[in-house]
């Protein structure tokens, strides 16, 4: 059973590789300097202990079986420092423009006050830089770590250990926020740095808001971006969340979304992953209120030797919730795509309706796709299903298009666009759909060139 031979339990063992050693040391030093005696200090120290015990995950850790972080992380760049005006300007040039949005900028993980519309947020939205929020004992800061999963996650442990930069954002109950809020993360400059940010977002009951997260950075620079979001979608609230991961091609991107859905809450989430040398996006979603509906969709585009991993864990804890996941992966050259999606339906979560689909398109024989959709069902009155496909472009469709005069490359482009288009369709806002399609078409055009 060698290929399935991955232990469920990670054995306790000391930190081993040089990178793990360096991370633990830096983390220890940072904690000694920063972490106080309060709850946050405890949370951070616990994360260091967990990291010391488990380190970076490798092939034999089931959840990371296709993304060997221990082998991939060789060097650890120094922690980023507070940005100056020049860095902010350079960062802004990297950030995609989101029409009509209020923007908050993080430069190499650190909050950039000068380039953020903190004071000009739409009505009903309030945000604080994380350090101020912690200092001011903001109730949102007190929630840090509340949505952490039961299982050890190295990316999240590091994010928690280095927790200092980030944001708390609150949307008032009942607020209908028309303007999107754009949380932009950029790594400018030619020197690699490591940045860790945490955003804690609580959307009040019945509110509606659109959030766009973007991640970008300098091409060719091996920086480490580690970002985690804790998002509470209140009872009857609606959140549209679009994530654009367009990191520089040498970067390491580790993203975590922790999610809790209240009663009748709605989430419409789309994630585009097309940057970074290695990226992993983990979602821990918990359906905690009856009648919650989650739609998570996404597109991964990879080429060269890029490695892109999307891993979802959706926990249906209560009855009557609905989840829909549709992920499309397009792999060119020697790129490697990973999709792992697990739907858990607990004993009492009757009438759960969960559907998950992952479709991958392989454009090259050197590309690799690994799919692991999972169902874990403990309630009997449910409708759950998953599907996964891997394949090349359809020869018959290609011939049909060519017989009508479309050159091979153009016919392929049209079919790939149609392939990813199905996932983009899930986004409700037309402006955001257009933004997404534009960015994908640009990627495809670059590939064809």
């Amino acid at each position: 059973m060698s290929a399935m031979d991955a232990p469920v339990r990670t054995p306790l063992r000391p930190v081993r590789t040089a990178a793990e050693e360096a991370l633990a040391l830096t983390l220890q030093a940072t904690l000694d300097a920063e972490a106080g005696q309060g709850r946050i200090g405890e949370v951070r120290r616990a994360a260091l202990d967990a990291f010391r015990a488990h380190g970076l995950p490798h092939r034999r850790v089931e959840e990371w079986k296709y993304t060997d972080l221990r082998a991939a992380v060789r060097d650890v760049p120094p922690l980023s420092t507070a940005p100056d005006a020049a860095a902010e300007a350079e960062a802004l040039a990297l950030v995609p423009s989101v029409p009509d949005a209020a923007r908050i900028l993080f430069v190499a993980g650190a909050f950039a006050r000068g380039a953020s519309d903190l004071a000009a947020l739409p009505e009903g939205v309030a945000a604080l830089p994380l350090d101020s929020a912690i200092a001011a004992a903001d109730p949102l800061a007190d929630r840090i770590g509340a949505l952490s999963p039961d299982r050890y996650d190295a990316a999240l442990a590091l994010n928690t250990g280095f927790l200092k930069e980030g944001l708390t954002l609150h949307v008032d109950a009942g607020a209908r926020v028309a303007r999107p809020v754009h949380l932009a993360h950029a790594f400018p400059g030619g020197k690699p740095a490591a940045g860790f940010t945490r955003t804690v977002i609580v959307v009040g009951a019945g509110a509606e808001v659109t959030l766009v997260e973007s991640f970008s950075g300098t091409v060719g620079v091996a920086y480490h971006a580690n970002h985690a979001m804790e998002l509470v979608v209140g009872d009857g609230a609606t959140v549209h969340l679009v994530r654009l991961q367009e990191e520089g091609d040498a970067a390491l991107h580790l993203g975590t979304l922790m999610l809790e859905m209240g009663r009748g809450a709605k989430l419409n989430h789309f994630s585009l992953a097309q940057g970074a040398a290695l990226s992993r996006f983990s979602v821990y979603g918990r359906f905690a209120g009856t009648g919650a509906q989650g739609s998570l969709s996404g597109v991964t585009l990879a080429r060269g030797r890029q490695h892109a991993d999307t891993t979802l864990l959706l926990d249906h804890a209560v009855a009557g919730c609905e989840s829909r996941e549709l992920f499309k992966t397009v792999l060119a050259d020697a790129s490697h795509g990973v999709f792992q999606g697990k739907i858990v339906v607990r004993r009492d979560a009757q009438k759960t309706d969960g559907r998950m689909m992952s479709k991958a398109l392989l454009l090259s024989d050197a590309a690799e796709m690994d799919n692991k959709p999972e169902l874990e069902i403990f309630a009997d009155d449910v409708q759950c299903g998953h599907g996964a496909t891997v394949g090349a472009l359809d020869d018959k469709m290609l011939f049909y298009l060519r017989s009508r005069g479309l050159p091979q490359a153009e016919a392929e482009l049209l079919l790939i666009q149609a392939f990813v288009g199905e996932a983009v369709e899930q986004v409700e806002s037309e402006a955001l759909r257009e933004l997404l399609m534009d960015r994908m078409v640009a990627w495809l055009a670059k590939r064809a060139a």
Partner: protein
Amino acid sequence: MLEIKNLHASIGDNEILKGLNLTIPDGEIHAIMGPNGSGKSTLSYVLSGKPDYEVTDGSVTFDGQDILALAPEERAAAGLFLAFQYPIEIPGVANMTFLRAAMNAQRKARGEEEISTPDFLKLVRQKAPDLGMSPEMLRRGVNVGFSGGEKKRNEILQMALLEPKLCILDETDSGLDIDALKVVAHGVNALRSPTRSMLVITHYQRLLDHIIPDVVHVMHKGRIVRSGGKELALELEESGYAAYEQDAA
């Protein structure tokens, strides 16, 4: 217009066309009839350049140009059009997007200006109603959710928009009821012109009541075994293909 000489073609190790000869002058409509498995559809695929088929001998000249070395899209740009027997569904590619992409690709290949959006829309609005193609059908993915008849109508609409020199209709009548057949035949007849030729492949004579051919060929075991006027089709309708089966046996 089209000259096929001693054409041999196979798929895998299986030779299907075994020395086929056929000449279609400008402006003429030729019908090819024959029993199932005689190689009719293979001929349409070989002419349009489907990758799985290998031409082992012979030549195909289209407008004085050897087309066997051309890619499918180059043949299309040269004016060759195949109306498929089973048009494929392409989810996610809107019919309109596809039609415009095809028109512009062909124009570009011929060194012509691309069609502007208003001109394109005008053209489609002008041609679609005749074929009973609703705006809703044009917005949908190519052939997605179309009935058999709708798919065939969509093929003829593409033909009308692309204005090819040679139209190959592969069993266009299959799966059509009589009303749908009339709509399709009407669309085809509207495209008759002294500078446009057609090759109509069919198993039954009934399509030829509506699209009157100049010449009828009988195909059997990968060759043309008999040619004649339109009355040959009627004769075949009565006697069937049995005589040819026996000849072969």
